């Protein structure tokens, strides 16, 4: 009596059916959906990861595409058809130069502390800039750095990846070249004793230098 019951309970739907389910779920939301979330919503035993492979192929070249955003998936209109969507364009607040640079630094150097952002830009970062980027859900707090003072770090979000059509932060344009050129290193100023962005030390050595 109980045997057929459990069998049917754990038998996953056919892959074609799973593909339909993933399709329906991805179509339903504007936000990317993680595989974990898909597993949670689909019948027991489903393999949405495999269904996604099929679905992505099915939509390749179509008017809408299945895209990967971090560890989540979404359906987005094909970028070449953006011109049709003039009505849908929502004017976003124009970002200041400081905000754009700060965003780029967080994306390429993450996890990055505020002091590190300031060192790269050579100017202090206003509270408002960070706040704006956090509010737009493009950056968020990461882990604290294991350096004196345990400063907070910033990292980019899934929303950032989604907005700029990136599968992951590794796909940032020019990332490889920057790394190869050593421009993503946190190189301490000469004369500082400790390695790694030891901000307080840097400050100290700088003030030392400036004392005439």
């Amino acid at each position: 009596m109980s045997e057929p019951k459990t069998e049917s309970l754990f038998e996953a739907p056919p892959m074609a059916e799973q593909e339909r389910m993933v399709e329906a779920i991805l179509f339903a939301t504007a936000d990317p959906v993680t595989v974990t979330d898909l597993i949670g919503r689909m019948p027991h035993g489903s393999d949405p990861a495999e269904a996604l492979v099929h679905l992505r192929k099915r939509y390749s070249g179509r008017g809408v595409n299945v895209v990967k955003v971090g560890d989540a998936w979404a359906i987005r209109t094909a970028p070449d058809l953006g011109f049709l969507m003039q009505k849908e364009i929502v004017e976003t607040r124009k970002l200041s130069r400081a905000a754009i640079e700060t965003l780029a630094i967080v994306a390429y150097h993450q996890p990055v502390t505020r002091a590190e952002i300031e060192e790269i830009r050579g100017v202090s970062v206003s509270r408002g800039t960070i706040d704006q980027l956090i509010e737009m859900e493009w950056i968020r707090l990461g882990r604290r750095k294991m350096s004196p003072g345990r400063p907070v770090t910033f990292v980019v979000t899934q929303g950032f990846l989604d907005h700029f059509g990136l599968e992951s932060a590794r796909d940032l344009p020019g990332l490889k070249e920057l790394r190869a050129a050593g421009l993503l290193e946190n190189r301490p100023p000469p004369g500082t004793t400790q390695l790694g962005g030891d901000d307080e030390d840097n400050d100290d050595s700088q003030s030392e230098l400036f004392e005439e």
Partner: protein
Amino acid sequence: MTDDFEQDTFSVTDRLAAEALIVDVGAFEGPLDLLLTLSRTQKVDLRQISILALAEQYLAFVEQAKALRLELAADYLVMAAWLAFLKSRLLLPPDPTEDGPSGEELAAHLAFQLERLQAMREVAAKLMGRDQKGRDFFARGITEDVMRVRTVSYTASLLDLMQGYARIRTRDDFRPFVLDRAEVMTMEQALERMRHLIGFAGEWTDIMSYLPDGWQADPMRRRSTTAATFAASLELAKEGKIEIRQGDMFAPIHIRKKTPRHE
């Protein structure tokens, strides 16, 4: 410093550009940004830039700003001081007694900072040039929320069921307490019985021998009848009908008829 500048070999156009920069000083995002802008006047790749020339350009800029009575933020002046120090390090032969990084090391680091800032500017522009959501590609217009359906499922166990039933069926058991007389002998009953028997008790007799037949076996009955008989004997003693004695603690209690003769 102005003298140094005069001796430099910058062209007139460079100087005009520098002057334009001064008027625009508010547009710079700090000294590093200014240095980066100045470096463009050298028209070379950042990797080949002359940090010495750049330092001189910057110092000239600060001097001119001063001449124009423009107020420069403190960090521009701090940078000027540092660049002046760097310049002296680069120009003077190294002092072997002095510790710390060489002028070349400091210059190399500044070059690195400029290159890094430049690189960040470029990738920021590339990033903003990408297709953006809501501008070039779009998310779903008609979204469907996941409806949260709260279903309350009631459960009960077999134990609940049985206890529930037992509760109803045995509710009558919780009636006001009434002693179950079948197992109990009252003092009145014992007294009645003793009055009949005591006339025969001329000698000391164990009180236990007065317990009625059939009451000794069941413990509850025995307890009840013992207590009742003892209480009845106390009543009889009070009435002066019998005498009671007990040899020791927990020793058998004996009673006998009290006769006027013995008084």
